[in-house]
């Protein structure tokens, strides 16, 4: 049995389910181990999961596009840490996150697995994903507000006279 067959599986994907999973995975990818574990504290006992792969650190070659929208080219690599685990119920969770934080990858894979269980997803969405997403949005918005404050307001001589 190949490793790939071993680690795949899990929920039957619907378009809506995939979109939701992509969303929570993108939030988990931007969270540190401390941030995830702090949010998990109020979520009851966590299951003992079987680690299927990792957590292990490797590289992703980042591709850009010539001119911004043309043919792809290889820009350079970034470190990425991944983890795959299986819950006692048999759900497989995956994580691929930028950087080298192995604890974060393991926790992200755990939350990914638990989020696929609709009985647990509601609590986790409210206690883990939503607050993490809100913090990430707040950080982005703070940067956007600082950028906006450096936006040049051109004026002309005629408007100066008014």
């Amino acid at each position: 049995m190949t490793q790939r067959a071993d680690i795949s599986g899990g929920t039957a994907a619907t378009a809506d389910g995939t979109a939701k999973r992509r969303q929570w995975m993108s939030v988990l990818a931007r969270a540190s181990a401390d941030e995830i574990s702090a949010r998990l504290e109020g979520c009851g006992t966590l299951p003992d999961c079987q680690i299927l792969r990792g957590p292990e650190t490797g590289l992703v070659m980042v591709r850009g596009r010539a001119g911004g929208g043309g043919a792809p080219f290889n820009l350079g690599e970034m470190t990425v840490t991944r983890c795959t685990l299986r819950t006692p119920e048999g759900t497989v969770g995956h994580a691929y996150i930028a950087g080298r934080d192995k604890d974060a990858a393991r926790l992200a894979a755990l939350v990914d697995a638990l989020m696929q269980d609709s009985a647990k997803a509601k609590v986790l969405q409210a206690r883990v994903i939503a607050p993490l997403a809100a913090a990430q949005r707040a950080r982005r918005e703070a940067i956007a507000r600082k950028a906006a404050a450096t936006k040049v307001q051109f004026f002309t001589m005629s408007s100066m006279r008014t």
Partner: protein
Amino acid sequence: MAYVAVKGGERAIDNAHAWLAEQRRGDTGVPEIAPRQIAEQLGRAVDRAMAEGAIYDRGLGALAVKQAQGDLIEAAFLLRAYRTTLPRFAYSLPLDTGAMHVARRISATFKDLPGGQVLGPTYDYTHRLLDFTLEQEASPPAAAETETDLAPMPRVQDILAQEGLIEPDALPGADDPGKPPADLTREPLSFPAGRDARLQALARADEGFVLAMGYSTQRGYGGSHPFAGEIRMGEVAIEIEPPELGFAIDIGDITLTECQMVNQFAGSKTVPPQFTRGYGLAFGHCERKAMAMALADRAMRAAELGEDVTAPAQNIEFMLYHCDNIEATGFVEHLKLPHYVDFQSELENVRRMRAEHEAAAQATRKAAE
């Protein structure tokens, strides 16, 4: 000539490295800096080490800068060596700089472009006077904030593209799904080198080299009348499509600087006069590098656009063979390694030639007498 193995020097080398470590630490009465401090407070050095080391990881970049005592080529070398210890998981999907969370975005060609001129954290317009207040520890006041929507900013080339005045991004045949882009980490350079290989080489090239070559095009060695159409810096999300998932996932953000140079072009038999473009993209906040890269990229497109190739910056082989500072430093610095046997043979050659020269001179003198 027989090769004579020379042993020894091990103790000298060990002691030299121990002294290096002591010197790196410096005066122990001064607090040691942590990589975290370097990442936070010497961010541009980390950006450069990451760009030229061709691996994005701020923690590793900061560690490399610390280990190299701030020698950024040495730091990039350390990063290139480290990356060889890691497995490659995937290639990302091509990133979309149009969706960048912009911290800075300016255009020198359009004053009133949608989204406006956003200066961001820039050294432009500073007076380059040494700020002696930085000698003391101080917390600067918080940066000003203004309410804004988070709408992505359109790229400047899309504005000119609407009138057909600028070459399109995707030239016919440029995007061939059956042919993955060149990867210099997997295959050595080969010529003719496509734009994909050139852009990868430039993105990790030495900033000083690319800067000098870009500058040379402005001074007339292959000039192409550039305008900074747009420079933008900010965070871009990276996506991969792991086979075990079967759909694309977002793995986090990286900070990038992008430059679109807009250049005059007289047109050719098949193409009407229009603006052409050079492109720069690199890890981190590195505007000088991105701008110089865009100039160099445009210069290296000379042959493709039917222009005369006369200047060094237009010579693709010259540029690609000399832009990488890890390769360059390896070949230049290898000269200091023991060449005792090589030199011994040269020495004997020169002695023999001098003896022959002297013999010939004597023969000439005798004949003259």
